[in-house]
């Protein structure tokens, strides 16, 4: 017995070391990031990415952990943002002694309060019923926000001044850098808290409810209560993200709680990979980055989002995290080298195919949207004239040629993958 116990302890200790190492590395990265990329634009991007990470992780308490597909998660985010703005204005008006760094907590309370209010009815059933009710509640709140002007400020929203609150450590939170660090702090706190939640009895029972709500009833748990508590936590952390957004933009408006925002978070969690805790973090980073980047270079960024989403759903339903984790047994079995060359070979025609698709889309978009100026498509530094007859021909050649060659190389990838997994299985790293 003692012989068997010794390696387990060792394994647990090195596991713990690696575990805290990851969190420490994340904290260091958050601190160092603005020192490396210090332009105003990147600071804004990092702030938005941080908020998106909290929001996407809060959504995954529902989708990935408890198996609840919500189409109205932005309700909690938005209401958190509105409560934060109102409290910030009240703090400034009545000189309450609440410094700005605590305001995200107010947002969290706002998100939680609404979750407590509507959650009990919503979580009575999972599946389609929950999804439909969440959609309805989302639309209801979004439309009310335009009707109840005194609370939501109508189309214009409600503005605030974050520097009017009591300062903390001599920070006014006027400069974006200080706001970034405030957001980074809350990203760390929220991510750790949400990760810890998955390691509690409740967190594990959430997984059980996701896998098999019927059986949960026969081990003593009421799945309705489990879903309700999970919904409360999701609302709370979404509210924190909303509160941070209110601080970041110094405004809360009806767009915060609308269907677009709800779609964004679903998108981020799904693309990142809902099955793993870190999936939504990757998704939030990628989707925010794409959102900021694509709108500068194309007028049809939503179309690209749609294509990416369909691609992920069809070819990698586990998201980015799923793709990464597929390779873990290969790394352990040291057979990853068998698939890498095939990836590199396949990347070339796939990239050609992607460029062809982009050129086709842009040609159509610019041909119909804007006449005259702006019809030059800049693809990898090569200018294409959208109105020139050669452009669609080039696009067609890229798409068709890229696809035909890519198909062959993808087959090669599948074969290499089979060989690599066989090796991993032989070495006992794969069931």
């Amino acid at each position: 017995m003692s012989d068997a116990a010794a390696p387990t302890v060792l394994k647990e200790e090195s596991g713990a070391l690696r575990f805290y190492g990851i969190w420490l590395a994340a904290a260091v990265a958050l601190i160092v990031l603005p020192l490396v990329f210090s332009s105003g634009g990147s600071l804004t991007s990092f702030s938005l990415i941080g908020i998106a990470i909290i929001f996407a992780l809060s959504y995954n308490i529902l989708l990935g952990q408890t198996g609840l597909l919500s189409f109205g998660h932005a309700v909690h985010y938005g209401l958190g943002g509105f409560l934060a703005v109102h409290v910030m204005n009240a703090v400034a008006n009545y000189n309450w002694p609440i410094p700005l760094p605590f305001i995200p907590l107010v947002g969290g309370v706002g998100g939680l309060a609404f979750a407590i209010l509507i959650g009990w009815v919503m979580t009575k059933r999972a599946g389609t019923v929950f999804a439909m009710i969440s959609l309805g509640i989302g639309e209801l709140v979004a439309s009310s926000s335009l009707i109840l002007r005194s609370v939501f400020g109508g189309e214009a929203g409600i503005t605030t001044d974050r520097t009017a609150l009591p300062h903390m450590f001599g920070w006014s939170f006027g400069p974006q850098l200080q706001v970034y660090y405030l957001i980074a702090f809350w990203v760390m706190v929220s991510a750790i808290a949400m990760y810890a939640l998955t390691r509690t009895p409740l967190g594990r029972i959430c997984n059980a409810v996701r896998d098999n709500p019927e059986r949960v009833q026969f081990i003593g748990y009421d799945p309705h209560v489990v879903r309700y508590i999970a919904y409360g936590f999701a609302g709370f952390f979404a509210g924190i993200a909303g509160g941070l957004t209110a601080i970041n933009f110094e405004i809360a408006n009806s767009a915060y709680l609308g269907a677009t925002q709800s779609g964004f978070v679903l998108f981020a969690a799904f693309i990142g990979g809902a099955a793993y805790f870190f999936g939504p973090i990757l998704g939030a980073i990628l989707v925010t980055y794409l959102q900021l980047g694509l709108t500068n270079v194309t007028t049809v960024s939503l179309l690209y989002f749609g294509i990416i989403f369909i691609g992920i759903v069809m070819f990698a339903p586990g998201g980015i995290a799923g793709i990464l984790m597929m390779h873990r047994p290969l790394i352990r079995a040291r057979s990853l080298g068998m698939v890498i060359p095939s990836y590199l070979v396949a990347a070339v025609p796939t990239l050609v195919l992607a460029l062809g698709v982009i050129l086709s889309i842009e040609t159509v978009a610019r041909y119909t949207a804007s006449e005259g100026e702006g019809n030059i498509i800049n693809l990898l530094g090569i200018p294409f004239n959208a109105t020139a007859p050669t452009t669609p021909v080039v696009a067609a050649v890229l798409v068709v040629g890229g696809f035909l060659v890519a198909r062959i190389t993808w087959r090669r990838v599948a074969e290499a993958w089979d060989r690599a997994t066989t090796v991993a299985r032989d070495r006992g790293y794969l069931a």
Partner: protein
Amino acid sequence: MTAAIEVRAVEKHFGNVSIIRDLNLNVAQGERHAIIGPNGAGKSTTFNLISGHIKPSSGEIRLNGNVISGLRPFEINRRGLSRSFQVTNVFARMTVWENVRCAVLWATGHRYAFWKNVDHLPEVKQRTAEILEDIHLSHRRDVPAGLLTYAEQRELEIGITIASGANVVMLDEPTAGMSHAETERAVALIRRLTEGRTLVIVEHDMSVVFGLADRISVLVYGHIIASGTPKEIRGNPKVREAYLGEEAH
């Protein structure tokens, strides 16, 4: 001594169709009780009625003397009755270890706790390890339940059922679909794990039934036509006609 399970005049109708008619059943404390009957006799429905999965149309069910008919499954489970399912019903994406641990959590009083680290609960850890040892799945503890072999999943199913430490255990065809050797293993397992508890079992395999049960009830068309020791049941002409005769061909 009050009966572990007492079913009194229970009826179940789905619309006009009567599935269970005037069902009466007594299971004494510590008894191993088998329910047998032809296909479609209502054995699984009886299980579902007792465990709260479906509600009786009329009649009364008592567990250790307390009325449980009308309660919901988790309320009945918390009162000390645990059941398994005929079709394997585990948490497929969770590991074997987590499957059993989830079933231990309520009974050890951790309920919906979100302020405790689930990995740092010594009594939960110990009990989970014991149960895995009992069902011979310790070596498979980190495998997702969905990837287990069929026989292993059936053993896990039993493990989840007994994990809460319920004093009344109901097993719905635990050996269905198993090979002869697997069945023998499973019966030995059931015999050992239900030591000192009350067991109600639905089973088609007559060697299992007559080898395991202290008492047998025969269910035909939603009505119990006979209840008694294996010897009495074997000798009962009504049973021979309705059931064993058919089975013997």
